[in-house]
């Protein structure tokens, strides 16, 4: 009965249509990006031996090249993070047994500071590519990866667990295979959250760029050509001008990838918003508009999607025979039980080893000392989050209620969150030294320097979504001044605030490593705390004490999350609008 219909839209021949003017505009852009990537990639694989100094110049003329290298690294790391997130989320959401181990593991990994990964990973990576720069390059990419991957994986996993049940049922009724379901249902549903987290991850990558590119672990001193190494060198040389140039380069980099990568992606991904009604104004992107108007690009993307939808058929379920679901195997039950015993047993074993390790290798006095340092850093984090909240919540609410500003402020805040705290070192050292201030107090603000913006932009977003009717009702009832804040604004933004504060708190712990140990040329200012302890031990290459410091930090972060932030979060969730 369907024979009557002939296909109306066949595969469009790619070059059938001549180029239009949008093609000519886009062509140089595409070629330039391709050439830059190829050039940068070639530079990555130069011969190199450990101990050899890589020349970094503070001449601003080299900055575009450094920027290119840094961008390549960050995007490679981002791609790795994405793949990691896919694999992680797919496994964790499909297998209960794996989930029980993987989710807590992710929690731990998230709280391990970047230096911890670097200390472990640098040697194996160099050994992997002997006599080639690629090994060090991989180590740097790995370090950036560790500051990007975890939140992406977690976001994807969470989305996959919360796919609306009726869509899940529809997918099953129509006999989609796991492969098809991932691409057609789970990934699209997770897309908005995943993209948002990718942008956050890029910011996180910038924040620790100096540590990732200027590797100074265990007596090594390797600087890879890039913005991070440039900043590190500028700090060593006490060159303020170079710092200023680095800031400009970074700004240019952020604008570039925002315009060329994230904006188009966000605009394109707008269709994945799950609310089926037309909601917020869609993000626009000039690049995407150009691409959609260009015939060549359109031809290419059409072909691309056609190929992809062909790939969807790869693992289709072959009718009913393939899916004759086996009755629950008795062995499966035992395996689950065995697993449930095995996991606690393994963790008990780990605890035992930890105790013997502390007892024999570092001593209890040292462990106690580190815990005290942890408490100092904890006090700092909490105090500063509180202070930052006092300052930013009112401002953020004010901005959020004025939509004409809120979008612009969001963009600026995102840039500020990416701003590596190292760039503040010259100003801070100058102020502390000339005014003879106590570093224990005055270095602390650096910890929330990069993370307070999470509070700002979450609260701005929260305030922007306060229903207009609620505000009108408050006006109508004559609520004014403090009463209006207490009864309307503060409760309304509370959930958004908690989300922001959780991110800020986690980031601040990580930032303590940079913020409690500040150098500018030969001047070094140290604040007592867990961060400076880890940093000093990393410089010294004392692996036992690095492990101790990082372990204690993990425990602190996880306890804080579990017993404080999580409680607040649940409270906020119950009261949300």
């Amino acid at each position, binding site marked *: 009965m369907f024979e009557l219909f002939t296909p*109306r839209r066949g595969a469009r021949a790619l070059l059938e249509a001549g180029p239009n003017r949008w093609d000519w505009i886009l062509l140089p852009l595409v070629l330039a990006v391709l050439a830059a990537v190829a050039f940068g990639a070639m530079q990555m694989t130069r011969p190199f031996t450990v101990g050899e100094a890589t020349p970094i110049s503070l001449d601003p003329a080299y900055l575009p090249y450094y920027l290119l290298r840094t961008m390549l690294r960050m995007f490679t790391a981002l791609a790795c993070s994405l793949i990691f997130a896919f694999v992680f989320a797919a496994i964790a959401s499909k297998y209960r047994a794996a989930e029980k181990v993987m989710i807590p593991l992710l929690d731990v990994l998230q709280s391990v500071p970047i230096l911890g990964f670097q200390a472990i990973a640098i040697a194996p990576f160099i050994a992997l590519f002997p006599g080639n720069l690629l090994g060090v390059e991989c180590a740097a990419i790995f370090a950036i990866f560790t500051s990007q991957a975890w939140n992406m994986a977690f976001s994807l996993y969470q989305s996959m667990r919360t796919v609306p049940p009726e869509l899940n049922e529809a997918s099953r009724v*129509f006999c989609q295979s796991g492969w098809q379901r991932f691409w*057609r249902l789970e990934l699209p549903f997770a897309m908005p959250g995943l993209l948002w987290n990718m942008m956050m991850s890029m910011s996180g990558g910038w924040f620790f760029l100096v540590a990732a590119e200027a590797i100074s672990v265990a007596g090594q001193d390797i600087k890879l050509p890039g913005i991070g190494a440039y900043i590190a060198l500028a700090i060593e040389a006490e060159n303020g001008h170079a710092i200023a140039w680095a800031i400009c380069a970074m700004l240019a980099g952020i604008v570039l990838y925002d315009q060329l990568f994230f904006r188009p992606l966000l605009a394109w991904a707008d*269709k994945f918003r799950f609310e089926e009604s037309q909601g917020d104004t869609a993000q626009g992107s000039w690049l995407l508009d150009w691409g959609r108007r260009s015939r060549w690009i359109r031809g290419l993307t059409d072909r691309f999607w*056609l190929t992809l939808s062909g790939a969807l058929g790869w693992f289709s379920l072959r009718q009913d025979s393939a*899916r004759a*679901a086996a009755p629950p195997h008795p062995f499966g039950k035992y395996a689950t039980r065995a697993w449930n015993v095995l996991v606690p047993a393994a963790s008990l074993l780990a605890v035992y080893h930890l105790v013997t390790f502390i007892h024999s290798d570092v001593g209890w006095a040292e462990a106690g000392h580190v815990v005290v340092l942890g408490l100092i850093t904890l006090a700092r984090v909490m105090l500063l989050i509180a202070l930052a909240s006092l300052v930013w919540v009112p401002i953020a609410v004010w901005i959020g209620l004025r939509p004409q500003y809120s979008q612009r402020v969001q963009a600026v805040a995102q840039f500020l969150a990416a701003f590596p705290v190292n760039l503040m070192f010259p100003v801070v050292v100058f102020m502390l030294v000339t005014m003879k201030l106590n570093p224990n107090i005055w270095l602390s603000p650096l910890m929330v320097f990069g993370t307070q913006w999470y509070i700002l932009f979450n609260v701005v977003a929260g305030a922007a979504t306060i229903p207009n009717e609620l505000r009108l009702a408050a006006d109508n009832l004559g609520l004014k001044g403090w009463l209006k804040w207490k009864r309307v604004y503060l409760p309304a933004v509370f959930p958004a605030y908690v989300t922001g504060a959780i991110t800020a708190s986690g980031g601040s712990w990580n930032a303590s490593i940079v913020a409690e140990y500040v150098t500018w040329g030969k001047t070094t200012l140290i604040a007592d705390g867990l961060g400076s302890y880890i940093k000093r031990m990393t410089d010294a290459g004392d692996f036992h004490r690095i492990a101790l410091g990082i372990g204690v930090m993990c425990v602190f972060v996880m306890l804080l999350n579990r017993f404080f932030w999580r409680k607040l979060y649940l409270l906020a969730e119950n009261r949300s609008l």
Partner: protein
Amino acid sequence: MSENVLMELHAVAKSFRSADGAPRLILDDVNFSLAKGEIVALLGKSGSGKSTLLRIMAGLIPADAGKASYRGKDIRGPASGVAMVFQSFALFPWLTVQQNVELGLEAQGMAPLEREKRADAMLEMMGLAGFGGALPRELSGGMRQRVGIARALVTNPDVLLMDEAFSALDVLTGETLRNDILELWDSNRIPTRGILIVSHNIEEAVMMADRIIILSSGPGRIRHEVTIALPRPRTSDSAEVRALIDEVYGLMTMRPAHEARPGAAIATHTDFRLPETDVSRIEGLLDLLADAPFNGSADLPKLAEEAGLSDEELLPTCEALALLGLAHMDKGDISLSQLGLRYADAEQTLRQEIFGQQLLTHVPLAARIRQQLEQEPTGTSPEEPFIELLEEFLKADEAKRVLEVAIEWGRYGEVYEYDFHTGRLKLPDQQEE
């Protein structure tokens, strides 16, 4: 005979594991078959397990006991000859209408050109030609459900399962869509051999089905079966249809007292189940009943029409009135009791007082809560023990809902109060304190 049977359920039972690990029976001993050329409607109150039954037949969830088979083969997962239409449409919002319709074909591994052709034909048949490139969010509810139906029909299913497919639509749209499907079915333009409809709209069931199955609740069993021999298309105003609707209303509202089999008496706790409705709807219906033209008693279909309530809303509300002793129900009619008439004339404070009294005397759960609170020296108690009590025979989410209803009624009758933030129930504050 088995040649003629599409789907067959034999002694099917299903239970869910509740929070404390003990199984709660949802469906018990369900025997049912769907024959070729038949439209069957499943009716039942919420919580009667009719959606669960549908999902067992769709292969989405396995039955615990008994045998479910499709064309003689055991159902062990979604079969490719069985398609489903969802209450909430379940369209993939990021796919265009065309892509949504192609979904099932894509899953079968059909070549892109072929599936485009099939989808185009189906869109045309469902009156969606020209909408292929639209995203679901651009469409109205009725159009979305058309897409949902097209998506199910394009795979040429043998059996079509419809899970309250029209209940999210307004009455007029639902009716049009229903008629469109019946037309396709009666003119044999779709290869589908059997349709199973889960519904709570009695008129819809009577208008569409060849056979209506009514499930009892807690656990769901087949209670009645009504065969409808009227030819389609049926007119909703005809005497036969009105009589059938009346009959089904009567069957649906029959007191479940004789439901319990003699042998099962040991297992019965006090029935703590409460109809899912709220105070303002109860009072609204009571006022409507008391006034002209009903003057105290009404035929349920007429009352539904007058009140503008769907059957899913009306029936629990009537049940609540009966439970509270404010009305009597008999064979599809409802009439206010003496007390109900007094209630209708009463002032607000008196109403709440009567409500409270009736609550304590007729609703075991409310009485239990009040009694418990009075025994506590502080006059307060956490909600958990009551949830646990309910979970002994209800699913976790149902138990929560029942407690919510009990809390609302209790608050209105000033029998007890509830603090949301602490999750504690307490006695109302005494005036003199």
